């Protein structure tokens, strides 16, 4: 009996010892590797880096948008350029959008609180709007009003592109109000885009709003007019990009692992070259940018592009011009998010449409746009003056917009998403489908990008209505702002 009591008490003591040992459990289970909170400026830096990294790399840009717009094309493993796409790339890009948008939501909420930094609120709102714009221009209808609301909403509904465009314009109008030059709120060098220059952020904010507005102009001219006139009517309240020095470029550090993505790719691959569409246009116009945009072909020193989505094996790679060094060979190169010249072309188009552009004529803005693009590459005045004097370039700001569209198109190189959006909106240059398209019966390059299978697998009920009418993944639905007719 006595023994039993001893044994029982040993066991009981045992249990107690173990139980009391749990007192350190919370400390033990506190992650020593990852913080519970992080500075918003560093989260902002990640979102700028990560989104650009994904959407301006060979997968996110060269293979598809830059190819669909006829600027770049693949010369080896010609899959994407003829619509043999990779699901994993689609999923990856979709994630790059929403993961980073989610991070921006957190920054906006956190920095809107007492003691927050209004500049970070503004930056996060601008960057969020930019990411949404790129995303909706790829897929059209996407989750917006219910996106990034976990855990409340696990299956976000899809919103119409029209409603997203309307809201993005308002978001940017609001964002403009947050920026302040107060020293206490300067983000400093952690702002990897503008090194803490709030004015540049503000200019990016309003210029981006111009981009959205002009794109909406064929679908909802009143909306476009209202926003463009508001911005151009008050340049002190709504400053816009005013020189190439203000170009919204993400400049890469140039050392691993942050090397400019096109150059990084070139280190190991030689899969991309210039597309015939752009090269022929530059040749026809005697464009001084040609030797900058492209390298002469290895075989004969001529500039020669390849037809888009070419039949594999139907050409010799040495006969095709590669991409110019400025875009392709500089590890510390740039990803062009928005250029000054684009703003000028937007103003030209707005003036042509009869919007109040504050006295600037279409012809003036157009010429300034061409010059801005030329000087971006240090083309000298004599050369661009001669260029502008050519009949195919010279424009008086009336009649057809084709010359404007052409110059804007040429200026957008390396910004595949914009170039592709412009070709869809303007139908210039008029491009049929890839030579070796895996889908038959279409008369244009893709209208849209395939929805990610992850979303189809996981959010089918919401995506299903958005998918109706899609043909061959890439066609069947035109963007809300794409008012072309007779295209399929």
């Amino acid at each position, binding site marked *: 009996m006595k*023994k039993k009591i001893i044994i029982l008490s040993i066991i009981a003591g*045992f249990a107690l*010892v*173990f139980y009391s*040992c*749990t007192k350190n*459990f*919370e400390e033990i*289970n*506190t*992650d020593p*590797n*990852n*913080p*519970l909170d*992080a*500075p918003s400026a*560093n*989260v902002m*830096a990640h979102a700028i*880096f*990560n989104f650009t990294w994904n959407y301006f790399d060979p997968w996110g840009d060269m293979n598809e948008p830059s190819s669909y717009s006829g600027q770049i094309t693949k010369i*080896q493993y010609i899959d994407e350029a003829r619509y043999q796409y*990779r*699901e*994993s790339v689609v999923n990856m890009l*979709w994630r790059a959008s*929403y*993961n*980073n948008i*989610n991070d921006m*939501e*957190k920054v906006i909420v956190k920095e809107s609180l007492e003691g927050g930094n209004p500049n970070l609120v503004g930056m996060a709102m601008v960057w969020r709007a930019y990411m949404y714009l790129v995303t909706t221009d790829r897929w059209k209808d*996407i*989750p917006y009003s219910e996106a*990034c609301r976990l*855990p409340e909403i*696990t*299956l*976000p509904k899809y919103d119409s592109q029209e409603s997203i465009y309307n809201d993005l314009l308002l978001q940017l109008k609001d964002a403009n109000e947050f920026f302040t030059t107060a020293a206490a709120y300067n983000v400093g*060098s*952690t702002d*990897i885009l503008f090194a803490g220059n709030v004015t540049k952020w503000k200019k990016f904010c309003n210029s981006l709003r111009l981009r959205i507005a002009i794109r909406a102009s064929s679908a909802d001219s009143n909306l476009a007019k209202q926003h463009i006139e508001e911005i151009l009517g008050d340049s002190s309240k709504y400053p816009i990009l005013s020189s190439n020095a203000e170009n919204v470029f993400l400049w890469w*550090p140039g*050392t691993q*692992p*942050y090397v400019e993505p096109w150059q990084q790719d070139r*280190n*190991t691959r*030689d899969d991309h070259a210039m597309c015939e569409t752009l090269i022929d246009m530059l040749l026809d116009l005697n464009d001084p940018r040609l030797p900058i945009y492209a390298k002469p072909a290895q075989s004969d020193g001529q500039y020669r592009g390849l037809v888009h989505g070419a039949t*594999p*094996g139907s050409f010799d*790679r040495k006969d095709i011009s590669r991409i110019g060094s400025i875009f392709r060979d500089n590890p510390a190169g740039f990803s062009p998010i928005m250029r000054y010249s684009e703003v000028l072309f937007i103003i030209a188009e707005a003036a042509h449409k009869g919007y109040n552009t504050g006295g600037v004529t279409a012809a003036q803005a157009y010429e300034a746009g061409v010059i801005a693009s030329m000087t971006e590459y240090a083309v000298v005045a004599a050369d661009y003056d001669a260029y502008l004097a050519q009949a195919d370039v010279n424009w008086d700001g009336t009649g057809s917009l084709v010359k404007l569209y052409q110059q804007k198109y040429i200026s957008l190189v390396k910004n595949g998403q914009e170039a592709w959006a412009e070709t869809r909106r303007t139908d210039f240059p008029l491009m049929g489908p890839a030579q070796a398209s*895996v889908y*038959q019966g279409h008369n244009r390059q893709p209208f849209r990008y395939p929805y*990610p299978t*992850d979303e189809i*697998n*996981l*959010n089918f009920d919401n995506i299903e209505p958005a998918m109706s009418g899609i043909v061959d993944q890439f066609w069947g639905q035109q963007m809300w702002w794409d008012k072309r007719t007779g295209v399929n």
Partner: protein
Amino acid sequence: MLLIGSTLWGQEIRVTGKVTDFNDGSTLPGVTILVKGTTQGTITDANGNYSISVNPNGTLVYSFLGMTTEEVPVQGRTTINIELMPDIATLQELVVTAYGISREKKSLGYSAQDVLGESISEIKSQNLISSLSGKVAGVQITTASGAVGSSARITIRGNSSFTNNNQPLFVVDGTPISNFSTGASQWGGADFGNAAMDIDPANIESITVLKGGAASALYGQYAANGVILITTKDRSKKSEPMGVNISSSVTFDEVYILANMQNKYGQGYNGGEYEYRLYLQNNGLTEAEYSYQQYALDRGFRYYNGLGGGKNDGTDESWGPRLDIGLNLPQFNSPYTLDASGLPIYEATPWVSNPSNTKDFFQTGITYDNTIEIYGSTDISTTRLSVSNMNVKGTIPNTDLTRNSVNFSGSISPSKKFNTRVVMNYVNNNSDNLPGGGYDENNVMQSIGGWFGRQVDMNALKENWDKDDPFGRPYNWNQSYFNNPYWVVNKNTISRNRDRVFGNITMTYNLTKWLSVMGRVGNDYFTEFRKGVIANRSIASTYGGSFWQSNREMNEFNADLIFNFDYKFTDDIRVDGLVGGNYMDRSFKSSSLEAQELTVPDLYTIGNVRGNPLTGMYNYNMVSNSVFGAINTSFRNYVFLNGTYRVDWSSTLPQESWAYPYYSIGASFVFSEAFKLESNSFSFGRIRASYAKTGMATSPYRIHPTYRNRDPYAGNTLFFISREYPVSNLVNEDMYTYEGGFELSFFNNRLGIDATYFDNTTVNQLIGVNVPSSTGFNSMLINAGEIQNTGYELLLRLGILRKSGGLNWDMVVNWSKSKDMVNELYGDLERYQISRSWGAVTIDAIPGEAYGVIRGIGYIRDDQGRVVINPNTGLPMRTPIPVEIGNITPDWVGGVTNTFSYKNVNFSFLIDGRKGGDIFSVTKMFGAYAGVSAETAEGDIRENGLIIGQDVLSEWGAVFAATNESGVILYDEDGFAIAGTEENDYRISAQKYFADYYGIHEASIIDGSFIKLREVALGYTLPKSLVNRVGFAKSISISLIGRNLALLYTDKSNNIGIDTETAFGIGNDGLGLEQYQLPPARSIGFRINISL
């Protein structure tokens, strides 16, 4: 009285003799000898001698645990020496159960199966786990590849978890050890093996596989997938005062099962006769005007710089000109002259096939394995020391593995009440170079086994890999994508060195006759260094080369205090069991350095980095406390009831859920004994049943949302929110196991059957379910899901021939079938993605379906199963969204071991296999795309083109899709093309067909069934007389051994001919996926064992 007595007893005679072991001739102490039909008996003494009085016409019955019972009529003899044979049916009468307690197998309510040390040390595999293949019912082994040091995955009773790696707990001499593993991923890296491979099979006495929840309930949260209990050799049971054993072997490895390649066409594009004729036709030429030789040179293939400077010489595909028909083309290994500007002009040389080029790359691997064991014992102590060295030269050139291990065990019993035992192991596991795996240029199979020029002469690459080509670049067949494979293995190395110490100290004190207390402290510590190097001038290298290195350190400490009791209330009722507690503390630290570019080429130090070094670190710590108890009640030695109870407190869970209890109950009924059914034909019978609930916690730090970071960008740390959304109300996982079975044996245990049915349900799994990324997160950690594993296990033992001194033949059959059903996920979630591969290919868990559904783009078929063809292209129509194209779970796995012995010779072989279990093969997919696989040049498809449904996919046939009057293809509302009625007659080129194949994942699904001749051993024990004449040894045996000797069967869908036994490490990640697996090796060798 005396006279009467002597008359009565005088009828008896005294019989003396010796009982020895048939196998090794050693004497057997403690053998029970009974006079048949009486209770009169004796036992043999320490030297195996006995003496007994018996009627001259009587019969003596000799019985000993683990040996066959022999009945010998006395027939008036006074000396009867007898050899007892091992009894395979009852050999494993005693099994080791949780906490190292040996129990009578018949008392268990669950299935536990033993594997004896000899059966894994005879034919040693580099990886202990691989040695279990086909030997245990209900266990599936998958050896990742034939590379040195590669991992082996083991699952017991199927995959029960979505996210855990489904690996069992490894326990060595009572203390858990880590089976930490890093495999190659699908996308590259090396397979660093799994840590259980540190155990030298030579030290293993036995392995017990605890399969069900009831078996493992006592080991707690880490044992939810079963337990592999390893007992190392302890010579205390042998009566010899000392001994020395030496074992030496050498084995030779040759790769086998290489993919089937075509040898008709070489590198390039558009080189087939079909394309040639089309070209003539399109250009209005005749063969006389434009010869095939000229066409081949102009449009098929012509080497200049391997970058497209010639014709298609930058390609890594084999759609080029026909081989072996007398063409001459400039090639990478053709002689060249230099022109005025120093540029090469390559001669045209014969364009001929090199059918064995892939195989030529591999070399004969050699494994030397030497072990010396010394042991001794006194009345109060035993000691054993074993030292071994294994040295492997891989089948892939310049790959290696060296394992040195020291194993020491000793015990002291200064009094009958007190015993202490120490077991210590030190292992050094070192490889200077492990081969790269996965889809990566550092995996040589990506080029030579996939993207390749079929005409390439491997010897040219081998002889010149360290030379430059005329452009001053490393000599290679192609300069676009790949390094010379010899450059890869010699320059771009991945090394690994692990030092490990594990062991424990156990003290036992007998408090009373029926109660003892045991304290045990065990520890497993290892430190591992890894380094990977990419040499300057490699294809993927930018400036000066690159390298990474990492250090990791793991420590797991376990302390147990256990009271054992064993109390006999009456002769009929006995209660035994234990009560105890465990404290576990596991910590892990790792750090890494990486330089992606180097200033001074090929100087792999971090100070030499060009730009910024990349760094990383990760530490974790987790603790658990547990109390547990077990009770076993037996009645008359034929009714047994077992129960266990355990509570774990795990630091990885939120406070409210720290503690979680689980339990098991089991019963066993030996009806043969209860109803006295034993006869000559029926020897033993019992039924058993058990029920258990077991639990599992999670990994550390999963309950709070955190930010993650990337390497600093221009001096700025980049933070982002973890893409997995955590939940704070996390609770543990639970598994419910029902198990029932029976065990029967007949004809003096010559036939034994052990059958088990099990039903495990795992609920509340802690899974990171994928959520739509539009929520901002990619996954969400939740407690959800239910997987149910049901199945059968069958173990059959046959003593087919039994003759003392004659031919003996035993057979053991293991077979199991497990159905892993996903019952539910979370809410209305339709699928959970276990892993993903190329394109839309995913391996999913889908409610209502078996675990591991492979989904991807499929063919569209009509109602007769014919493939629907696009009338505009002649190519198959595809499903617009991923559909089910296979399932990874096999129908069954099994193995048959046959053992023969005749006098001093024994021979055994093991055949094992599996039925079903689909695989998505990237080797097949890209082998077709690249025109290297045999199917791309079958028949005359490159000469004449092909029509789908006739020349390919003929087993299904093909029809055109339906179109409207203007030729537009008609689709149904889900976007699937509608089949027409007209049979396909659109002729296309083979190149076009196989380029498209890649988009239809269904084409690359293989049925994973196989049957392999896994092991063969032929042994010879030198006769005693001969050994005695040699003088120095007690016994000598030699054997001829073979492993992975032949693939006896593979499904016809495996026309690419890969080894379907494939994995990426031990995780769930690579289940059902094959991606340029390094080929397995066939091993043949010799072993000699000497006992001194």
